[in-house]
């Protein structure tokens, strides 16, 4: 009796993958700029048009530096929205990173409900390139709604929430818990479309030290210039010879 061939799962549906594999790329993905992290993410980058949960013990542990290469790769005409950040953003920092500060939009609603509304409007509008949304307690329905709104756009949508939210369910297909670490940030992948990632790994972030600023003297042009070619006797300039 002939046995039916086992169909290859990719031929059944493109969104199907084995539990031991990373999910194939489904939408647009933006490279994170950190090879170690890229290797662990389905689609080899941050998924655009999808809710990405970043869980932080407290703000300022390197989360922005982690996102920085992806934000820098956005086209210049698309804005980066900082929605309800815990502290006022520093323009000088973005300038030092080589990002145009005019790209930034700082949205500070007065009430948490306004922040969720603003996030949904920004996602629906779709003109911005990235949305970084800080929010402490979010109802599950709110998360689902934001995830749905994100799916209709191609915005990089990160939700930065306290670590306490790690235990709660989330519709986000990608959830990362960040911990401060020396020279980088320790990442635990709580949820991804792929096999369980048991071990947290450290993503080294580039050192904060900038290349040494040249000494003030070296700002001036050097005096060693090539001397003008010596005029040869007996040869007139073409203008004179005319």
């Amino acid at each position, binding site marked *: 009796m002939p046995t039916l061939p086992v169909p290859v799962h990719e031929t059944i549906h493109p969104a199907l993958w084995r539990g031991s594999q990373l999910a194939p790329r489904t939408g647009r993905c933006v490279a994170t700029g950190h090879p170690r992290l890229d290797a662990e993410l389905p689609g080899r980058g941050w998924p655009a048009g999808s809710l990405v949960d970043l869980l932080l013990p407290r703000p300022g542990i*390197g989360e922005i530096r982690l996102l920085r290469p992806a934000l820098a790769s956005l*086209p210049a005409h698309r804005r980066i929205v900082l929605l309800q950040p815990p502290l006022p953003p520093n323009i000088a920092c973005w300038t030092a990173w080589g990002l145009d500060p*005019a790209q930034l939009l700082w*949205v500070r609603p007065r009430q948490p409900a*306004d922040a969720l509304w603003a996030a949904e409007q920004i996602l629906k509008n779709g003109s911005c390139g990235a949305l970084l949304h800080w929010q402490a307690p979010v109802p599950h329905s709110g998360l689902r709604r934001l995830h749905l709104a994100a799916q209709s756009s191609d915005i990089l949508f990160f939700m930065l929430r306290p670590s306490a939210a790690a235990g709660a369910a989330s519709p986000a297909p990608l959830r990362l818990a960040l911990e401060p670490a020396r020279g980088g940030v320790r990442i635990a992948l709580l949820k991804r479309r792929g096999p369980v990632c048991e071990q947290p790994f450290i993503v080294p972030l580039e050192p904060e030290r900038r290349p040494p600023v040249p000494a003030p003297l070296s700002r001036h042009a050097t005096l060693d210039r090539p001397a003008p070619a010596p005029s040869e006797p007996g040869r007139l300039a073409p203008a004179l010879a005319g």
Partner: protein
Amino acid sequence: MLDDERVVALTPAAARQGVQPGMRRGGVAAIAPGVLMLERDPAAEQAALDAAAQAVLHFTPRVEQAVGEHSLVLDIGASLALFGGPRNLGRQALARVRALGLRSRLGMAPTPAGARLLACRPGRRVRRRVLRLPALSPLLDTLPCPLLPAAGPYLDWLDNIGCHTLGDLRRLPRAGLQRRCSPALLQALDAAHGRASEGWRDFVPPAHFLDRCELSEHVDRSDAVRHPMDHLSARLCAWLDERQLAATRLVFGLEHERGRHARPPTSLELALAEPAWLPQHLDGPLRERLARTALPAPVIAVSLDVRDLAARPDRNAALFPDPAAIATDHGRLLDLLRARLGAEGVAQAAARADHRPEVANTWTAGPPASSGRAPPPPSVEPPCWLLSPPQLLDVRQDRPVHGSPLRLVHGPERIESGWWDRSWTLRDYFVAEDDRAVRYWIYRERDADPARWFLHGMFG
């Protein structure tokens, strides 16, 4: 309706009670006590005529309001092909005027004066449309003399000599007629027959939009005001459509009760970053702005005044999204966010050239700007977040403490600036690290003893 204490217009119901034009107020009150008498309001009449003129500007840029009589003359010679012929155009024009709640009659003729005479022709189901000049004269000849305004002072005399129609008038000897009457009469007659040209004064529509909507009852909930506001903004959009313009600032006035509890109207301003002309673009910001507004008193009327207008941007019909369309979308997003969060809720970077971090880090509600050149970059990467105001740190054993004692990693970077204004700053900045390898940007005040340490920034 009374003008100068005499009845000038009346409803059929009043006529059935015996009221007649020309009666005095006392007479009307005596024979029909139940009749409501209203004073004639020339300003309201003119406003209605202006509204009608604006409505018919849709068909032609050349519209004339006849002075003293309630008629509009449209030069439609150039518009016939566009609107599907004279019959269709006439029907559409009548529909537009009817939509304003006005009753009108339409006459059509090759000459403006002729068309006006035909429109004024009394009676139902009479011919009012003539398209060719040879057919016009016989028709005009049958019209009664009183239709011609210039004949007004001489009507009795004309009646006495048996001259009842314009045809009779035309057959009179011209020289005698001109001597006995004014030259204006002959001119008007000639103009109607197309033998003399008339002056033409184009109706110039006002350069801004002003409209008002009375509410039938007192409204004290802000969401109930939305309906009249939507109505006004729909009218505004129609008005903008006619002119191919877009609005950049809308001012709604919510008028409150008059009398003893009179209050000035509440003004509701909607500034748009992206000029809008479609109701769906106005709708969102308007809804959010209104939800943020609390009404101090019941509202009896809503007005809309739009003075800030911009030309519509030229649109490119592109298949793929282009940056310009994204910028437009972004402008609409900003309008929407500002409407709900307030102007201060949406900030854009406006860096200032200053060495003091808190001065350099300026955010504005307006468009992003950068004043002057940026200060030279510091030797270390600046922190991602700035605390405002800086947080005073505890000092334990001469070391600043934030959770755990901080270790200075980099520094000092000395900032001494601002002696020209109040905030003279003498600081040494350090990058510090706590025992969990989180970095902070802290500073020590140099002019304080013992040293005070402040946390000023966090590295993202």
